């Protein structure tokens, strides 16, 4: 299975994903940008993440398994290799930066608490989740 995702693949679904994010968060579509942090910029709560994933699954006829993003971000690292005491390890941080390549490096704190990872998720992150499932 190819995990490479092209910008064209993201662009193809971005309008639908942005509409879903705007609907779920009750904001104007203009406020939703590819690099908007859903939590920091758009005030999303955990229920909104569930809502967005639920809507994406219905719209794109894919199944996005629970914890899929974290699992993919971790790659081949074990949980212990990825985080220790709630803090992402150096190896884990490198994985995060690769997996969330769309996120500017200066937004990723070092040290990074694992509980803070969802704050990094952007609209584009959700586009990539959908594309991965479509390709998978």
């Amino acid at each position, binding site marked *: 299975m190819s995990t490479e995702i092209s910008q064209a693949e993201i662009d193809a679904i971005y309008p639908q994903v942005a509409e879903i994010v705007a*609907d779920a968060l*009750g904001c104007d579509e203009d406020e939703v940008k590819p690099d908007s942090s859903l939590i920091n910029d758009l*005030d999303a709560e*955990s*229920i909104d993440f*569930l*809502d967005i994933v*639920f809507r994406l699954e*219905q719209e794109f006829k894919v199944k996005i398994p*629970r914890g899929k993003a974290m699992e993919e971000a971790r790659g081949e690292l074990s949980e212990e290799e990825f985080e220790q005491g709630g803090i992402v390890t150096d190896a884990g941080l490198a994985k995060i930066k690769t997996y969330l390549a769309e996120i500017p490096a200066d937004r990723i704190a070092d040290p990074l608490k694992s509980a803070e990872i969802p704050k990094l998720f952007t609209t584009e992150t959700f586009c990539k989740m959908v594309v991965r499932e479509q390709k998978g």
Partner: protein
Amino acid sequence: MSDHFRAFSFVDRILSDKQGKAIVGQYQIPDLIRKFPMSLVAESIGQCAAMSSMAAVNFKHRPVAGIASVVEFCGCARPGDILKLEVSLTRADEEAVAYSGVAWVGDKPVAKLSNCLGPMVLMEDFDNPVAVRKRYQLLVDSGAEPDAFGGVESVDFESVEKSDGEREGQFTVPHEAAFFGDHFPRRPVFPGTLLMDLKLKFVADLIVDLEGGPWTVVGMQDVKLRSFMPPGELLELSGKVDKIDGEQASILVQSRKGKRRNSSARVMLEKKIL
């Protein structure tokens, strides 16, 4: 007497349950209460889904109110009526329950819920897992005694006209109420369906004043509860006309705690008399 399984429980028999897939339940609305709001009919559908989903995860988790994409009020339920509750679940795991359901009185549907999603929380944080499991078994085996519910106290709210087609106000979640003993014993929170009922009352004046009427509330859409409402919490309310399109209209109603949006819903209106 404990309020647990009495003050805010609206399933008194489980007729069949394919755990996490489909459940049919029943609730007899007590004769002696004055009225049974449609929001509580919606609650009974949700509680039926909750029973099946809790059984599916071995009572380690329980769902709480989250999202209802579409709530249709298509009839009336009166004291003395028996609600038949039919729910199909598309998901029931440690993260969420997803379901749709219908409440029937006789051969007529009175309320329908579509595409609902409830996040799961740890049961032991909210309720006694052993007691809930025992309650489930009672409902499956012989059913619970009807007439446990004695009605809910109405919650006061303030409402003022902000501009034409727009109102704002506030309310405080009661510090004490019988329903907190049931919702939930270990962590009392204001039920989302009572907020739904309060919102319907809050927008009543907007509906009366809305041009082109008379309008009838036929349901709600995009109902979302984003955070818990503990006893004593002050919430601000806002309602504004969202759309008027021929025979249909909608009003967007939200609650906020400070700057953070706590809940939102669209009240759907039609030019018809139920």
